[in-house]
């Protein structure tokens, strides 16, 4: 009886463990196979050397170029730059509160056939002294990083 109970327990432990492993594996496969799940970050310089295919979902980031913002009804056009290269971005909707020219920004969307990046979302930050890590790195790679004075 004791022996039997023990075997049942072993089996149960095996089932639990096996189930966990299997489900985790499924999660992992879902993650790596479905292209929509992963969104790559590209800096303007990355895109200058290796342009992204039209329609592929991406995140781009950098600084919003001064005086580049143009409004037309609900649509806003602006330029994101790492101070070496530039991307034209178009967004329709209400911009986050901390969106400002000269500030770091991350936009998620895809390029249209004319080469304009159409953003679905523009990421808002809670903190204006905050610099998205990708943007900071993009600026560093472009040799345009001003040091840590504004990243606290």
């Amino acid at each position, binding site marked *: 009886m*004791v022996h*039997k*109970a*023990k075997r*049942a*327990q072993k089996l*149960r432990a095996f089932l*639990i463990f096996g*189930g*966990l492993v299997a*489900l*985790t594996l*499924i*999660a*992992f496969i*879902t*993650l790596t196979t*479905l292209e*929509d*799940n*992963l*969104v*790559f*970050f590209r800096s303007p310089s990355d895109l200058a050397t290796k342009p992204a295919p039209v329609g592929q979902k991406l*995140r781009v980031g950098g600084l919003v170029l001064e005086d580049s913002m143009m*409004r037309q*009804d*609900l649509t806003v056009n602006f330029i994101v730059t790492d101070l070496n290269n530039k991307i034209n971005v178009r967004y329709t*909707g*209400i*911009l986050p*509160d*901390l969106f400002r020219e000269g500030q770091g920004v*991350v936009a998620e969307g895809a390029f249209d056939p004319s080469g304009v990046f159409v953003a679905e979302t523009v*990421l*808002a*930050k*809670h*903190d*204006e*002294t*905050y610099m*998205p*890590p*990708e943007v900071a*790195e993009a600026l560093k790679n472009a040799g345009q990083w001003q040091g840590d004075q504004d*990243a*606290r």
Partner: protein
Amino acid sequence: MLVELGHFALILAFLITLVQGSLSLVGARRQSDYLIGVGLKAAQIQCLLLTLSFMALVYAFLRSDFSVLLVATNSHINKPLIYKFAGTWGNHEGSMLLWALMLALYGAAFALFSKQIPLGFRARVIGVHGFMSLTFLAFILFTSNPFERLLPAPFEGNGLNPILQDPALAAHPPLLYAGYVGFSITFAFALAAMLYSKIERDWAVWVRRWVLVSWIFLTLGIGLGSFWAYYELGWGGFWFWDPVENASLMPWLAGTALLHSVMATARNGQFMRWTLLLAILTYALSLVGTFLVRSGVLTSVHAFANDPERGIFILLIIVVSVGAALAIYARAMRQELPSVGTNLISRESALMLNNVFLATATSTVFIGTLYPLFVDALGYGKISVGSPYFAAVLTPICVPFFMLLPFGPFLSWQKSLATQFIKPLLVAITLAALSVAVFWQIRPSLGVPVAFALLGAFWLIFGACAAPLARARLFETGWISRLIRLPRPLYAATLAHAGIGVMVLGIIGATAWREEVVVAANAGDRLSIGTYDFVFDGVQTHEGPNYLAERGSLRFLSGARAGDVLYPEKRVYQAERSQTTEAAIDISLMRHVYAALGETLEDGRRVVRVWLHPLVVLIWMGGLMMSLGGLIGLTARRAA
């Protein structure tokens, strides 16, 4: 002066934790009641000192003492008093001190309210807990000292990030931390149990209430945070699958699993190994959450300014404490544990399934949240994992989980018969199907996937209610008095499980049926959404205590609300030179009308955005029901 006193108290508390940790553990080994007594007292003194220290910081904030660096960088003379107070933990250093204070409060509470537990066990818990406090106080003193001075003191502070100047967010960190930190006691319990040469099941009996308390706080904290994001960020969303949000979801999922497995362990030692491991991992996930939020390694919409050096320190705390715990676990698991047999249809099996689902959900969220870190470390570039992943992996977990969930409370320990649940659950599924039919009448364009989701939500609600009603033998004489006298844990389960259904209902309403209108409007323009018509009456300026607001007016033209006005605002906080969007929400049980004001266009028109969120309030009501269920469970003497 008081600031120095606070700083001194903090250093003293740090030293006391050393006494608390070492004397308690030595006392436990030597079975010295005297040493153990000192250890337990030390936990209370540590708590007193940290309370003093925290009060000193609060005082510095209330008095706007800008000679303290932290106050100067995070506060401002003109800030309303409540936000001066809440501003104490609206920054990294202050929030870490709050974390340490919570840790000490739990330690002292344990020292005071655990007299029914044998002295040797109490000593082990309080000893382990002392060392956990030690690591955190070292972290604060060496990397994040809140009492650092700034000389000469400026006349004016930089102010608090205006987005944090909100009642919900003032209460959010204390609640969330009370949840996170509560699992430190659970962790200490597990270690204490494993420090004995033979593991007894008693620890699971004693730990149940502590798990519940932490879980209730965590549930409330997450709910409040999500509600804040909903109305303050002006996007009308309630959950974004953002790393910082996932950081709190992981310990919640693990904690929910622990809550269930500990019942079986407390009863007869079932799942002993698993429950011990889960207790360790739940706290580990709380620490990982803190690490993700505080180190800024992941891009998050909720990220604040942060410092990698601190991240490394927290990582070190995680590696050391969890590593040590797992080493003790590995050693303890070499002993033979009594094996308990059970039948397929039993409460035990139900709890096991619950844990399989919850553990899988935890690990999938974990993979999705940390995957970008691995990819980046391997040099494959920067990526982010978005909601499609979480929807894709969590749906196949939630569907069978929710289908099986109502069966759980019907099952008895050891062995159950299908006759116990077949009839009541058939009634429940019929009622659920009827409810979906009613919805189909109201919204003919429902669609099959949404109909199935609705069926699931109602199945959870009616299924949860079926258990107590069936147990009281509904409609047989005397059923009301039987219903009242049912064991409290059954009520707790009913309320919490029905809460999940209510929450699912809210999520369906807010995602499948939401409507959105964005217009550029002149004063006098009309707009409509759903069955509502509005007229935009333009924008007026209006002065708040420390901000200037542009206030738009949106007047209802038709229906029962005719004449009522919504006032969405854009606020400019002068001191902080930043802007916030204050949405205006017309709240009722059936729907929210959510209005936000955008910027002014060149031709003078104003961007106005209006959402209709049907049933959205149920999301947070469901969360409240779960917490309330937990509270009822807390008052019960036994688990089930």
